[in-house]
């Protein structure tokens, strides 16, 4: 695996240019599986109140959903609860969740979208489905940084400075 130089963590558009743009251009998408499709239809039909109730219930039980929310807030990315639930279905690791967070922020910036609804998530961001596991793994490896003796870890996506160009607030 090739590691990025630590210096890229200090550039404000590294996440956008090194991770989001290539993933958008070359990432392989796949259609929703049967269960995801059923859940999507369910989410489209439920009232906002019921979705909010369900969301709060799930969030109280699963920390990753709360962490997803925290990351979205951190970069000022506003997406509705139904969208968060649908996206989370495709997240098998915390890394996947974080990759989707930045990718969505990138697409929202590109499309001039201030607040993302489930309709727009499906129509504008993922019209042909979410990324394949293989693609996600490939781009996960590509965002790895060699931190050397610097603190901060080996994931470009964890460096606040590197995602400043995606901030909306």
């Amino acid at each position, binding site marked *: 695996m090739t590691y990025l130089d630590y210096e890229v963590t200090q550039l404000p558009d590294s996440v956008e240019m090194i991770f989001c743009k290539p993933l958008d251009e070359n990432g392989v998408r796949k259609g929703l599986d049967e*269960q995801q499709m*059923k*859940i999507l*239809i*369910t989410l489209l*039909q*439920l009232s906002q109140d019921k979705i909010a109730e*369900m969301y709060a219930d*799930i969030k109280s*039980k*699963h*920390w*990753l*959903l*709360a*962490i*997803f929310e*925290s990351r979205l807030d951190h970069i000022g990315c506003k997406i509705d609860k139904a969208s968060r*639930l649908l996206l*989370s*279905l*495709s*997240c*098998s*690791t*915390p*890394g996947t*969740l*974080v990759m989707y967070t930045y990718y969505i922020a990138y697409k929202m910036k590109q499309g001039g979208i201030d607040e993302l609804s489930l309709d727009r998530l499906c129509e504008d961001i993922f019209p042909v489905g979410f990324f394949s596991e293989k693609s996600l793994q490939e781009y996960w490896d590509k965002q790895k940084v060699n931190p050397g003796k610097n603190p*901060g*870890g*080996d*994931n470009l*996506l*964890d460096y606040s400075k590197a995602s400043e160009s995606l901030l909306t607030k």
Partner: protein
Amino acid sequence: MSDNKIDEIRTIEEMVIKYPNDLDLGKKLREYFVAKGIFKKTIAEVKENK
């Protein structure tokens, strides 16, 4: 699950270390939807509305 505050989580690595049993959110959400019988309820509601 841990009772640590969310704000304490800063990096992906920390998430993995702190929540080793709560990682596959997608799988857990699918189980949640199935367990709650959400699909059946929705179908019933659609029929009711017709």
